[in-house]
């Protein structure tokens, strides 16, 4: 699984929320890698820590959240150790962020053009004409008439706003684009259209993408690799195709069985019994053990590491070397 040219290499990253009741570990020792040009999807239920993980990687956490330990190697440098001033140089230029709701992520009192200009001028001393030219270029790239550079966010439709955000994210053709559920706020048709557009842009520009979502079917069509998160930990990570055909972790299996497929024989839908744990006092041993249909005695006391299998990494004792 180790790619020789990995753009992003996250190692044992942990994020804590400092609450009045103590530190809540929202992300627990997560490790993952993204190769150049690869599309990695991160899926999980609400509250599993996927968005927190994303913002930790992008160094965009705000109090009370903070990185407790671990490293995030981006292009060879550990982002966790970089100060704000150093970070500012690589922000947007080398990696950019696309957020869930463009209506909230765009400054309501500035035109799209002004916000693009801001991003450009923060990193480059381009003459005004070139700024203009580049802005128009990225707008056309995502299929928006450059006329809309003069528009305010509230004057655009939802789909257009989202695409404007993507245009902004690509203005410096970064190597990594981090996306936090960018399609959740759209209807199905717009969702598919946006995803196709993102894939097309990826093909043309060649950026790596980390895409967080709770929508399994969407991510199954578009991602190369998939990471499944549960209770702040990555429980399985591997090629998307393999995960759908042969899910290994009981949780992943449960997910796959939770939604119907259009083709094939009618199946009974099976959910996953129980509810996600309280992260202030997580279960001992394997965090999934209270809900696991294949639970064993050692699962209650021993937290499984990420076992290496030929086509996936699985955090489950069922796949231990001596199983």
């Amino acid at each position, binding site marked *: 699984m180790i790619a020789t040219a990995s753009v992003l290499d996250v190692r044992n990253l942990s994020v804590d929320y400092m609450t009045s009741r103590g530190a809540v570990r929202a992300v627990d020792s997560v490790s993952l890698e993204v190769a150049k040009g690869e599309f990695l999807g991160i899926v999980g239920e609400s509250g599993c820590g996927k968005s927190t993980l994303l913002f930790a990687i992008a160094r965009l956490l705000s109090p009370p959240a903070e990185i407790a330990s671990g490293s995030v190697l981006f292009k060879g440098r550990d982002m966790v150790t970089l100060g704000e001033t150093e970070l*500012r140089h690589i*922000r947007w*230029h080398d990696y950019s962020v696309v957020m869930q709701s463009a209506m*909230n992520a*765009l400054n*309501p*009192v500035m035109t799209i053009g002004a916000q693009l200009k801001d*991003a450009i001028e923060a990193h480059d001393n381009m003459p005004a004409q070139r700024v203009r030219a580049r802005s128009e270029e990225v707008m056309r790239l995502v299929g928006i008439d450059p006329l809309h550079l003069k528009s305010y966010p509230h004057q655009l439709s939802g789909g257009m706003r989202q695409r404007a955000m993507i245009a902004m994210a690509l203005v410096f053709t970064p190597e990594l684009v981090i996306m936090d559920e960018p399609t959740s706020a759209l209807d199905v048709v717009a969702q598919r259209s946006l995803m196709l557009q993102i894939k097309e842009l990826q093909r043309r520009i060649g950026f790596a993408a980390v895409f967080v979502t709770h929508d399994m079917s969407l991510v199954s069509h578009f991602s190369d690799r998939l990471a499944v998160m549960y209770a702040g930990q990555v429980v399985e990570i591997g090629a998307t195709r393999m995960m759908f055909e042969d899910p290994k972790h009981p949780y992943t299996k449960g997910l796959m069985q939770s939604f119907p497929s259009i083709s094939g024989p009618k199946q009974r839908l099976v959910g996953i019994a129980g509810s996600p744990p309280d992260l202030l006092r997580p279960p001992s041993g394997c965090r999934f053990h209270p809900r696991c249909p294949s639970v064993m005695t050692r699962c209650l006391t021993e937290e499984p590491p990420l076992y290496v299998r030929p086509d996936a990494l699985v955090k489950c004792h069922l796949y231990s070397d001596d199983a």
Partner: protein
Amino acid sequence: MSYLVRRLEFFAITLWAALTINFILPRVMPGNPGQAMLVRFHGRVSPQAIKTIEAAFGVRSDQSLVQQYFQYLGNTLRGDLGVSLTFFPNTVGDVIKQGLLWTIGLVGMATIIAFLLGTLLGMLSAWWRGGIFDALLPPVFIVISSFPYFLLALLALLLFSITLDWFPLGFAYDLNSSINLSWSFVGEVAWHGFLPALTIVITSIGGWILTMRNTMITTLAEDYVKMARAKGLSPLRIMLTYAGRNAILPNLTGFAMSLGFVISGAILVEIVFNYPGVGFMLLQAVNSEDFALMQALFLLITVAVLVAVLAADILTAWLDPRTRDTA
């Protein structure tokens, strides 16, 4: 545009409300203020002035209420507000013109300074969250802003004018000087006006700081601020253009709405310092039962507040493109 039209509509309606209140009050209150005034004016004023008072206060019974109302409205809008008892034989119009200048100078400037400074401090306090600034500020300013204006004025008077003798006891300028545009006169005015202005700034700034801090905190949690950080923009730019410019919008509306309270406090400050503005004049009018002057001052102050509100609305429309598009 429709936003501004609605605000102008509001302006007109409130103005009408103030005029109507002026009209109704002397007629529902016990006693007959109009009659009382006429007795004191008897034989000393022009017939025109008598007519004005009658229409405003409803003394003559041969005119119907509606007729009186329109007479009163007409007079007022033409600027015919009657004759002042306190400053006899000057007309009310002349008298309030004088006071207006002083009040706008003192109160206007002090309020604007307090608003701008308070907004800036509130913004910084939210930006540097968790620091000493933020921990000290709220309790200190909550207490200060609940302090009655006039009390602070009295304290200032006691400490700086009486005990330390650093500043004069009141009024706008030295009683021996005459009004002119020389530097020494301007200096005098500044010296006399310093304590009153300081009082107004200190008591009102707390409110601006606190509300700006609160809106700024909410704004800083917004996604577009996170985006601005993600884009690598400089902290100053984020604070001002992304957070500040959005956070100040509700504050502007709040500024407009609370202007009425600010003016009230300023009036009391004028009274304590015997500053010859419209507030002090209002007190004099009340004490000498000069109802015509009193009414006119009430109207004037209301109009001043309305104009300020309209100005704040225009500013909001300019700063927030969303308001221009809403119906």
